[in-house]
């Protein structure tokens, strides 16, 4: 990425460049500013927890900056999302282990069954009477449907729809073949359409 294009992109997006002459750092700053909100939404949909989502994005940023900054900028996007998905999985595993451990404690024994899976206690995102605005209601329904998708299908759908990656980039980010990406995406769309049919009529 050239210096002039970085500055132009930064001013367009309202990004304040760091007071450093390091070109890589500046390019990385612009890149991270471009992906951070989308990455946060992806993590938030997967984890259903604001703080955990922020932690996952922050860890992914740190990892990319410290380990892969020297790689060509064209590789940053798939690398970043791959790291992010790993962080999301780590957070989900930690939750499961924490849930089991808490259930094992004697004072939690009575609630062992209900505490085993913390996701069971996540807020119910299915649309209710409180969702007045039609757009908000559809978004809530879409989010709930995305959370019900298998992990790889959700990951694939969000990378393509939200991040706007093509098949090859998505395959690189997910560490699978182009064919797998097409299959995951197609199944995700089918499943979402089946779940959201009533909102689309």
């Amino acid at each position, binding site marked *: 990425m050239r210096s002039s294009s970085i500055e132009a992109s930064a001013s367009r997006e309202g990004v304040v460049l*760091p007071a450093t002459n390091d070109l890589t*750092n500046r390019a*990385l700053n612009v890149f991270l500013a471009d992906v951070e*909100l989308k990455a946060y939404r992806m993590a938030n949909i997967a984890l259903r927890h*604001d703080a955990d989502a922020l932690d996952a994005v922050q860890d992914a940023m*740190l990892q990319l900056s410290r380990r892969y900054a020297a790689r060509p900028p064209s590789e940053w996007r798939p690398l970043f999302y791959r790291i992010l998905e790993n962080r999301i999985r780590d957070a989900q595993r930690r939750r499961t282990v924490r849930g089991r451990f808490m259930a094992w404690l004697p004072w939690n024994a009575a609630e062992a069954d209900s505490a085993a899976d913390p996701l069971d206690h996540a807020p119910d995102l299915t649309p209710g009477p409180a969702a007045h605005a039609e757009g908000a209601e559809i*978004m809530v329904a879409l989010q709930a449907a995305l959370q019900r998708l298998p992990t790889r299908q959700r990951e694939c759908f969000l990378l393509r729809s939200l991040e706007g990656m093509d098949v090859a980039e998505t395959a690189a980010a997910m560490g699978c073949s182009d064919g797998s990406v097409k299959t995951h995406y197609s199944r995700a769309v089918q499943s979402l359409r089946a779940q959201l049919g009533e909102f689309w009529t």
Partner: protein
Amino acid sequence: MKHEETAEFERRTQALLRDSVDRVDGATRSRLAQARSKALEPRSGRSGWLDFRYLAPAGAMAAAALLTVLIVAPRDDSNPVNDSGGGALYDLELLADADAYELTQEADLEFIEWAAAMSEEKAGT
């Protein structure tokens, strides 16, 4: 027809998702910007393994291991308390003094007793 419906569905979901990104609140945006800034900070010169994050658990493990050894290891109470080191010192003196060592190895105790009695008699006269 089916393909068009799918394409329309994809367009709508994409628009919804991107709209949800635009509606992320200011506090979260600010925290993300802080996280980005932190990620871009130059690393300190300190090597990774000296980091407190790694030293603290290592120190805790070492302390726990020491405590376990102190609690679990059997205490040797066979020696009387007032004899600790005294016996060893006596052995050392015997080894250093060749005559004394030979004396302890002497089988003829009667001769020793006789010699002692003679020296006492001499002292008495």
